[in-house]
């Protein structure tokens, strides 16, 4: 029997809430089915958006890495790599929701009716910094997932190499997205080290993918 998947607008509305004036579609995006998460990403609400998608992609990449390690019983480090991949997955899944909340908070701060002035500037800067922090966490996790994918591809079962390579490509793409979001959120903060940290993550992930021959 096919499992019923409900994604009607009425149901989505029933789950809806707001961060400031910005509607955010669900209380816990990570608890949704894949179909439900995709519906939320496709919805008219500004959040969730690319940051949440990047977090989900990192979690999927980590899951593929974990699979590759689990399917490599002859590899001495397999259990340890699987444990690390699982940890990355578990720390990334909550970022799907965290990014949606942070993005909504940024939009709310930017769109608030507060009169221009230092208080409003501080509120906007804080909201954007919060969004940058979440995106940086996604970038870091993406780089870690790519590093682990390389280990699996090099030392795991040869039959797992394709999945490991796919994981590296996904992780690298998500890291690049997250790094761009960090930069976008910090455009008003000159010389913020988080921007260079995120860019460094993106470079590291790209190097891994290049070494693995990913397209």
């Amino acid at each position: 029997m096919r499992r019923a998947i409900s994604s009607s607008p009425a149901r989505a509305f029933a789950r809806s809430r707001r961060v400031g004036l910005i509607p955010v579609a669900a209380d816990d995006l990570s608890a949704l089915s894949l179909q439900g998460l995709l519906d939320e990403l496709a919805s008219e609400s500004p959040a969730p958006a690319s940051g949440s998608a990047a977090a989900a992609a990192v979690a999927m990449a980590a899951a593929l890495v974990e699979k590759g390690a689990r399917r490599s019983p002859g590899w001495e480090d397999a259990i340890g790599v699987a444990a690390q991949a699982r940890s990355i997955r578990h720390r990334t899944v909550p970022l799907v929701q965290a990014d949606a909340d942070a993005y909504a908070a940024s939009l709310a701060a930017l769109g608030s009716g507060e009169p221009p002035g230092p208080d409003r500037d501080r509120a906007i800067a804080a909201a954007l910094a919060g969004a940058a922090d979440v995106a940086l966490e996604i970038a870091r996790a993406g780089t870690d997932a790519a590093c682990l994918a390389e280990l699996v591809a090099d030392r795991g079962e040869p039959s797992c190499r394709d999945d490991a390579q796919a994981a590296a490509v996904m992780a690298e793409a998500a890291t690049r997205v997250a790094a761009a979001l960090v930069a976008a959120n910090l455009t008003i903060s000159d010389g913020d080290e988080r921007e260079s940290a995120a860019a460094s993550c993106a470079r590291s992930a790209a190097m891994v993918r290049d070494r693995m021959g990913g397209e």
Partner: protein
Amino acid sequence: MDWASVSDGEVVRACRAGDDAAWRELVERFSRYVFAIARAHRLNEADSEDVFQETFARIYEHLGRLRDDDSVRPWIGQLSRRLCIDKLRAAARDPVPEDGSEEHGALDRRLETIDEAVSVREAMRSLSADCREILDRFFCRDQSYNTIGDLLDLPPGTIASRISRCLGKLRAAYEGRSGPASASGEA
């Protein structure tokens, strides 16, 4: 004295010899364990505190009866569980299942999780400081390979392999410690 590398049995022996610092270490080492057992029995804060006080009072009184010093943890676990059940029965606010009901099974699982966590913590103690630090940074503080690499002055590429080796050591230590154990004391 650096108690981190001292075994439970050695702490017990030092307590028995009248070492005050060893007694403080014993309380420090097992207080969270006792409170966790109380929480698993859903005791409130005041009752949990009572169980904590009574448990350590009995440990102090009956430490000499412990037949195997290295079995102090299962003994404390058994003692705490018994005191929790006494507390629940006395309060009569939460019937204690007599046999394998779902609630009883859930309680057993919570207690198993606590025991497992304590075993892991004990196994961690046997690792080198470097291993403890790298595992703590990755699994407890959620730090990335780059962050750990910068802090420990190690290339990020080697962090994952090093964590795997440390996990292997932790597993060996855990499996060496978590064999069947039974309470061997009386209180």
